[in-house]
């Protein structure tokens, strides 16, 4: 019998589909059961396929097994809720054992509804990101723990508490109402943005998982874009910015896994396809008058895809940062704005501005000052880089700074 090749990440992508559909079918009280059924389905596949070979239609096989397991669960639960639960005051599952709908349409509807459920304001944003990674993206506890630089127990506890909270608050798995959608969508976008940043800036050395986090964040944004009600300029701006950022994925990691700073990147390694997609979604984002922080960040990211160091480029970047900081302050934006200012208005002015920032506990602040003093006062440059080195927490950051000191 011919051995079939499984498509990469099949289990992960099927896991999240099955979980979403089952959660939707069972209700919020049974997230754990949905996860268990999906996991058991893969264990059954492992036990069967390992010996008998991969079936012709692996997806269909998985769905059939998942449906059977779900039906058994419902049957058990019915017996339990009819005969045992009345005494225990448990929440029964009211649905029938009707066919569980694993059609493409229901899968994407269920995932979208789960996305809104997971990003419910009643749970912390940290827990939202964790739940999204687990339930919507299908990452394992170990992979999530690795990205957050923590252990499995911590993640398990965090997810458990979040699920309990959703249960206790009786959050319904459904699409928010028309009036509510704009507000709730903002929370969803924040979570997707955090998820992306978790991958892009994670201190974990696991490059593969980090990149997958970013791709998953983009997939979730795309899910929103595919739905008419959630296809807003803001969502398009967010996806655009993620495309631009990811286009530099290959270029920002060196052969030894070290960080390669933007200035030193080989632009031949930039992914032109992602840059083109970023431009497309930025154009879609520009329909209407809305100018969100995602728009501004996407526009900044766009200008970074232009490698040539022109005055026009940096003037645009500076003005976009000026606007961004008015919309939402962040230390990173303040530091980047000052760097752009050095490119347009000169290093002396940028040094004066940097000193007003009041960010002296941030190692990037001293890296910036080191960079600004370079060529003006190399002793000061070195002192600042050394200060940054002492404040930097990760090996990667320290390596990058050491390189700067050596280069002086």
């Amino acid at each position, binding site marked *: 019998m011919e051995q079939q090749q499984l498509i990469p990440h099949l289990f992960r992508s099927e896991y999240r589909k099955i979980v979403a559909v089952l959660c939707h079918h069972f209700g919020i009280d049974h997230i754990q059961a949905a996860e268990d059924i999906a996991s058991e389905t893969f264990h059954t596949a492992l036990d069967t396929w390992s010996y008998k070979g991969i079936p012709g239609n692996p997806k269909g096989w998985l769905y059939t097994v998942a449906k059977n397991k779900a039906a058994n669960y419902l049957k058990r639960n019915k017996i339990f809720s009819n005969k045992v639960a009345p005494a225990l005051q448990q929440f029964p599952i009211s649905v029938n054992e009707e066919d569980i709908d694993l059609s493409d349409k229901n899968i994407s509807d269920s995932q979208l509804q789960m996305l809104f459920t997971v990003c419910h304001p009643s749970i912390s944003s940290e827990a939202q990101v964790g739940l999204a990674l687990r339930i919507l993206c299908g990452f394992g506890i170990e992979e999530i723990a690795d990205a957050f630089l923590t252990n499995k127990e911590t993640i398990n506890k965090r997810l458990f508490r979040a699920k309990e909270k959703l249960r206790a608050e009786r959050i319904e798995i459904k699409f928010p109402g028309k009036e509510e959608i704009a507000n709730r969508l903002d929370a969803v976008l924040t979570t997707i943005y955090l998820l992306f940043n978790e991958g892009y800036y994670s201190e974990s050395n696991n490059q593969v998982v980090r990149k997958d986090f970013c791709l998953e964040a983009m997939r979730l944004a795309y899910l929103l874009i595919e739905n008419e009600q959630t296809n807003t300029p803001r969502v398009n701006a967010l996806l655009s910015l993620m495309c631009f950022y990811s286009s530099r994925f290959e270029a920002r990691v060196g052969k030894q896994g070290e960080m390669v700073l933007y200035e030193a990147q080989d632009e031949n390694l930039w992914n032109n396809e992602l840059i083109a997609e970023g431009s497309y979604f930025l154009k879609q984002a520009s329909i209407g008058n809305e100018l969100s922080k995602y728009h501004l960040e996407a526009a900044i990211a766009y200008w970074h895809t232009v490698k040539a160091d022109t005055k026009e480029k940096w*003037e645009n970047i500076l*003005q976009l*940062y*000026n606007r961004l900081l008015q919309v939402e*302050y962040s230390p990173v934006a303040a530091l980047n*704005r000052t760097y752009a200012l050095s490119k347009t208005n000169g290093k002396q002015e940028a040094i004066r501005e940097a000193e*007003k920032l009041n960010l002296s506990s941030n190692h990037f602040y001293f890296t910036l000052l080191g960079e600004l003093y370079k060529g003006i006062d190399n002793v000061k440059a070195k002192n600042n880089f050394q200060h940054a080195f002492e404040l930097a927490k990760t090996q990667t950051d320290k390596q990058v700074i050491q390189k700067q000191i050596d280069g002086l």
Partner: protein
Amino acid sequence: MDEFILIFRHEDGKKVASPEQIQLWMKQTMDWIGSIAAQNKFSGGNGLAFENAKVVHHNKTITNGPFGDIKETLGGYVIVKANSIEEAAEMAKGSPVLQGEGNTIEVRKLVKGDGVH
């Protein structure tokens, strides 16, 4: 931290400047506001259009203005966060509005609804 409003007062709102000059002022204004925002001290602000303005008088008559008999016109405002009126005044020094001779910036503390004021 308290909030302070910086009110830009122009001596002559009708003064004509070259497009090049206006463009330079615009960049300087944006950089100045960006600098305040980069210190996390920006609360808000807006320009006030000079064209098509009206003044309503005590006797309820309405005139085109505020030019003519009134010497000063207001050009806009920025609200900043600062620890003292001195700090707010120091920030105002960076505004390109002050490049115009006779122009001034009035710095006033915003009243909080805290029962003290």
